[in-house]
């Protein structure tokens, strides 16, 4: 008797679940069809409300159509006569990781998901000129003029969900974006010390018309012995540096007085401190601003474009410290640090351009000494030539 009662309860419960499930599914499908009855007819919307029109064919092919309108929007029974704006469920309900990434970047608070994505269309990424160009109109306009625009869209190089500024991104990360497509760029055919150049220069320094040469020093791991320059540069992470400086902040590694700028003396102290023998500075040529006018500029093939730039062009320098979130904070360095002859930037040397003037003067004095001695002796030789004739 008890068993019969239990069986009956289970059957009733199962039937309820079945009915409820069918009801949800049916309601969702019905809801989407109801919505499209109005929102799928473009004649219902004038120019000002055009954005409310949904192309039913496009929408039908999306993953969002499977979820139904109700999964993101909710309306009252009196819609649209209630005068209330339908609610928008946030994208993070399903795309939590992506929204989390976005919230950490520069786009957070400056752009909505729907500024770039159309959730009602298959592959609903809006064209760059429409989405990126909405805010970055100058950059997009400049980019569209370059031959690169025919081959790649903004998102091919920039991740819109992990948005970092030019200076927050390491030169190596920037170069990786280029290497994705240009792995076999034929620099070695004409560029001497090709690999070394690739590791010490950002691609955009030569392949854009960006202005203002800067040298950014990154902290690399050396594990006692520096890696061969032909090998990979192993950048120290925030965690690596925290182990060295504790809770004082990674910038205190070099900026010891914490004034937000680095002097030549502070650089020398860091470079010569045996405590930091396992880390060192790796300099990279970059630009102060990033231009989107990509191209191959013939004058960059002339080595003297950089190497004859003269010491005055090499005054601006930064040290880039890694942050916990993977970005970099740049701290300005005292002018002319890269021209120091010895320990300020002991491993960054651009032949010709970062020569030290004092060393040059010393060298020229040595040569002048040799030439002067010959000239002086020669003068006395001419003056005393009669003495030698006598003998």
């Amino acid at each position: 008797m008890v068993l019969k009662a239990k069986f009956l309860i289970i059957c009733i419960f199962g039937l309820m679940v079945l009915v409820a499930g069918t009801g949800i599914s049916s309601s969702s499908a019905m809801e989407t069809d109801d919505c499209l009855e109005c929102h799928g007819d473009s004649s219902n919307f004038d120019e000002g409300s055009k954005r409310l029109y949904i192309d039913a064919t496009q929408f039908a092919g999306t993953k969002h159509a499977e979820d139904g309108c109700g999964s993101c929007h909710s309306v009252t029974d009196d819609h649209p006569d209630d005068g209330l704006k339908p609610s928008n469920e946030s994208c993070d309900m399903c795309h939590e990781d992506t929204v989390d990434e976005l919230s950490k970047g520069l786009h957070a608070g400056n752009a909505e998901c729907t500024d770039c994505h159309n959730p009602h269309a298959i592959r609903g990424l809006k064209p760059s000129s429409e989405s990126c160009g909405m805010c970055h109109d100058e950059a997009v306009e400049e980019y569209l003029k370059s031959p690169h625009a025919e081959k790649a869209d903004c998102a091919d190089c920039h991740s819109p969900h992990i948005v970092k500024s030019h200076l927050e991104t390491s030169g190596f990360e920037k170069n990786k974006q280029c290497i994705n497509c240009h792995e076999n760029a034929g620099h070695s055919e004409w560029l001497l010390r090709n690999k070394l150049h690739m590791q010490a220069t950002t691609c955009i320094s030569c392949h854009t018309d960006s202005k203002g040469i800067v040298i950014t020093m990154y902290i690399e791991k050396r594990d006692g012995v520096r890696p061969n320059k032909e090998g990979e540069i192993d950048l120290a992470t925030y965690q690596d540096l925290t182990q060295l400086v504790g809770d004082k902040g990674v910038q205190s590694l070099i900026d010891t007085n914490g004034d937000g700028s680095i002097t030549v003396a502070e650089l020398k102290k860091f470079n010569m401190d045996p405590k930091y023998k396992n880390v060192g500075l790796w300099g990279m040529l970059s630009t102060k601003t990033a231009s989107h006018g990509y191209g191959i500029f013939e004058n960059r093939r002339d080595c003297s474009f950089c190497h004859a730039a003269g010491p005055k062009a090499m005054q601006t320098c930064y040290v880039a410290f890694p942050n916990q979130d993977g970005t970099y904070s740049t701290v300005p360095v005292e002018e002319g640090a890269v021209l120091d002859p010895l320990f300020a930037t002991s491993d960054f040397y651009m032949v010709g351009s970062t020569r030290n003037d004092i060393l040059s003067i010393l060298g020229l004095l040595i040569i002048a000494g040799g030439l002067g001695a010959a000239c002086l002796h020669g003068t006395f030789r001419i003056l005393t030539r009669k003495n030698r004739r006598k003998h």
Partner: protein
Amino acid sequence: MEKSKMIYLNPTTVRIWHWIHAIGITTLCITGAQIRFPEYINLFGSYRTAVLVHDFTGIFVCLDWLLWFLYYVFIDKSLIKLYVPTLNDLKTGVIRQMLFYGFNYFRGKPNPHHSTPDNKFNPMQKGAYLMIMTTLVPIVLVSGLLLLLITQKWMIILGGVKIVVGIHFLVACCFAAFLFVHMYLATLGHTFWAHIITMITGWEEEVEEH
């Protein structure tokens, strides 16, 4: 009355080495000057050409020096005899030679040193050439090779690329200074061309005064 005799002072191998070194070091000095001061010096066309010529000449001079060193140490075994000053040279020879170049030459006095195949160099030359060939040349060549290869492992031992560049540059300047002095002193034979002809033919005319 003057009487002269001919001495075979410089064998062919020595002369070849000398001129290879001379051309090599002059080329390295000029290309090096363009590499360091490209805004002011452009004798080899493009910067790239200057670097390539500098690299190639540097390697060539390295091999040439190595051959010279091995020959003098292991085959001819005359490095010490020819280049290392004797005790006598240090006690009196150097001073006597300095007095000659500084005073006695102007007074018309004869050179106190008479070259022979076994004692080619005067005490000052011995000291200078010993320093150049066994210290300065190896320093400039090794630092140049390090800069060519940019091997960081060695750079850390030497204190970084800037130190190596500084040493390379200053030693190279010493060579440039030496070239001027050397070329001038080459004209101080009994005639203006006497020493230069010796380095071309190998034969030196020694004038004996009676």
